[in-house]
Every structure is written in C-alpha cells, then in structure tokens.
C-alpha cells in the first residue's frame, strides 16, 4: 500500500506545522471559515506535489504553499485587497520610533493589538505575522514570500512603524476619551 505509506509520511511531515499554516492563513484572509478552506486546499495541493518535496525545511515548504493558496483565494474572492500596491522605496530612520510611547503601549490590550495588526496592508501584515508570531528568520520569510531579504527587512521596518503609529493613535484617543 504505497499510497497509504505516502499519506502517513505526508501527515508526519505536514501536520506539525498545521498551527503555523492556520495562523498565517487566518491572518491573510482574516476569517475562520475561509482560513480553514484555504488551509485544506493548501494541504491537498501540498499532498499532490509531495513527490517533489525533497526533505529539508518542511515548514518553509508548506508555508510557501499556504501563502500561495491564500493569494489565489484572495485573487478569486477579494481581488481589491491585492491591488493596493505599496511603495517599496522608503528610507527608514530610527527617529520615526524615537517617541517613547512604550509605557503607553504597555497598556494596550490583546484586542487592540489584534485589531491594529489586522488593519495593516497585506504586504506588511504577512511579514509581521511571519516574524513576530511565527518567529521565522528573514531568510525563511524571503523564501516563503518570494522576496529579496532586503525587501523583507524594509517591509518589516515599515510594518512595525505603521503598527506602532496605529496603536499610539488608538491609545491616545482612548486616553483622551477616558480623561473626558
């Protein structure tokens, strides 16, 4: 029964990464049901190409397929989310982060951070999720998202900046609201 052996081996390789796969898909499509559909589609696609998997980094291999499935799904269902192209030319400066809002941010609750991250444009959101939540290396992110490492680095910088400013704004509004 080689096909069953292959299925068992497939599960051994891919199921340990199910949480990472689901989390990435959930953050990209932003809905439980859609994330489940996309992950299932990705797993079936991965199974179809399992012969092509030559060992090595199975998490990177699987997440690449998951991300591609998310983009196909978005293309089919929410093409407008993909059309907002972002400007890659951007000079990062540390000064953008230099306002010490840290104490303020410490009071931010999970709900608020979650909402702020969900608000980020797709290109920033995916690198943030892969870096901050999945703790992937720049090299792994570059492989999965098919980007140069320099682009990964600059998107991460800009993503953090945006997230930071969203949170600062929200906290500011809330503090003011609370004071009023």
């Amino acid at each position, binding site marked *: 029964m080689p096909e069953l052996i292959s299925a068992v081996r497939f599960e051994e390789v891919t199921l340990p990464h199910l949480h990472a796969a689901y989390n990435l898909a959930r953050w990209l499509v932003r809905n439980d049901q859609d994330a*489940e559909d996309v992950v299932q589609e990705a797993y079936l696609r991965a199974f179809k190409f399992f012969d092509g998997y030559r060992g090595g980094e199975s998490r990177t291999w699987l997440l690449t397929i998951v991300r591609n499935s998310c983009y196909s799904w978005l293309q089919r269902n929410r093409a407008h989310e993909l059309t907002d192209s972002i400007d890659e030319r951007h000079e990062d400066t540390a000064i953008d982060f230099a306002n010490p809002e840290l104490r303020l941010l410490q009071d931010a609750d999970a709900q608020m951070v979650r909402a702020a991250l969900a608000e980020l444009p797709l290109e920033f959101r995916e690198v943030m999720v892969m870096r901050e939540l999945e703790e992937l290396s720049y090299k792994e992110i570059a492989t999965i998202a098919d980007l140069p490492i320099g682009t990964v680095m600059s998107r991460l910088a800009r993503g953090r900046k945006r997230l930071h400013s969203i949170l600062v704004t929200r906290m500011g509004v809330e503090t003011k609201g609370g004071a009023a």
Partner: protein
Amino acid sequence: MTCQETGQLIHALADGELDLTKSLEIETHLKGCETCVLALEEIRGLGYLMKDASLRFTPSASFEKRLRLAVRREVKEKPMTQGWWRWSMAAASLALLALAVWAAVVLLIRPSSETFVAQEVVSSHVRSLMAQHLTDVQSSDQHTVKPWFDGKLDFSPPVKDFVQQGFELKGGRLDYIDNRPVAAVVYQRRQHLINVFVWPAKSGAKPTTQASVRQGYNLMRWSSSGMEWWAISDLNLAELQQLVQLLQN
C-alpha cells in the same frame, strides 16, 4: 554610523539578524545616541507586546480531523496516479535502466570472443619468445614437422615451407588457445619470428581476412579449408600479408 544608517539596520539588530561586524558598529553608535536607543527599545517593546497579546490563531480540533480525512480521501480518489501506479512506473524505468547498463557493459566492456582469442594469440606468441620454448620440433623440413603433430592433435595442420619466398620454417609446437589444443607453426623472416596458429574452425567462422595490431604486434586471422588461422609477428604488415597469401594458396 549615522542615525540614518542605524535606522536601516536597527530592525535587523532587534531581530538578531545582523552579522557581528555590523552589530558592533551599531552598538558603538547606540552608546552615543539616545534617540536610536529609544527606537530600539520601542521596536523590542512592540515585539513583546505582540507575543504577549497571544495573537496567534489556533485551528480547532475538529478542523484538524476534517483535514486528515480530506487527505485520506484524496489518496483513495487518485490511487492510480498517486500511489502504486507511480511506484510501479518508477520500478519499471529502474529495471529498464539496469538492463541498458547491463547491455552496455556486456557489449562494450566484455570482450567479444574474437578479441578474447586475439589476446590469447598475443600471449602465446610472447610466451613462446620469452620462455625459450619456441618449438617442440625444430626442423626446416615440412615432412618432419607435419608428421610430428600426428597423434598429438585431433586434426592434421597444413605445414609448408616457404624458404624460397624468404619465410624459413623453424619448426612446430603444441599450444592451447580458445579452450583447445592447437598447432603453432613457426616461421622466420630475417630476425623476425612468426607464429602461425591453426585449429579446426567452428561452423560459421568468417572467411574474411582481418588484420589488427595488438601490443605492437601485427595479427592476421582468416579461415580456409575448415581451419581457423592466426598469424602474429613483429614483422611489418605487408610482409606478414605475403606469408598469409602463401598459406592461403
């Protein structure tokens, strides 16, 4: 390092992705720049915030179960292309490859029976010169040499003297080639010794005369009147061919 340059690398530093040289450079800058220190703290704080906030979504247990079932279903739906069919195709192509390799080895590396005999002829020739055992019967008289073979072989080798044509008969010898006893008739042309091996030809032997060179020796083989003939010498090919023509007439 300026604040501008630091700003480009500070995220890599926070993420532990910077090489040692750059890390040292940026840390030197941080010692004298409070702005950049604050920025680094802010970036790290944001990271902690995201991790603390348990932002990861986890799949439900029922979803994991459904996913396993979906994969198993996929296996059942496409067993021909996914499973044993692919394996058997792989096995078949492996078998074909093995066969091709075997054929190549047999055809290219294993010598043909003729090459094998040629090698034996060369070895016998060399041995006859080395071991001072050129002839068992030493005579320039064909009527001495030919009868000597009687009773020693199951065939009667043709023995002729061509001293008039410059090929002196030196004698005869028993040898063993191609898994059978054969007659070796020795001729001399000036200082060159010539071994002529002869034995009954197998059916279907090629009558054509073939010349070849092995280890510096000229070889000629042919078959006539039911006999397989091999002549070998360090003599030049043209003169060896003269002897062969004499033997063929």
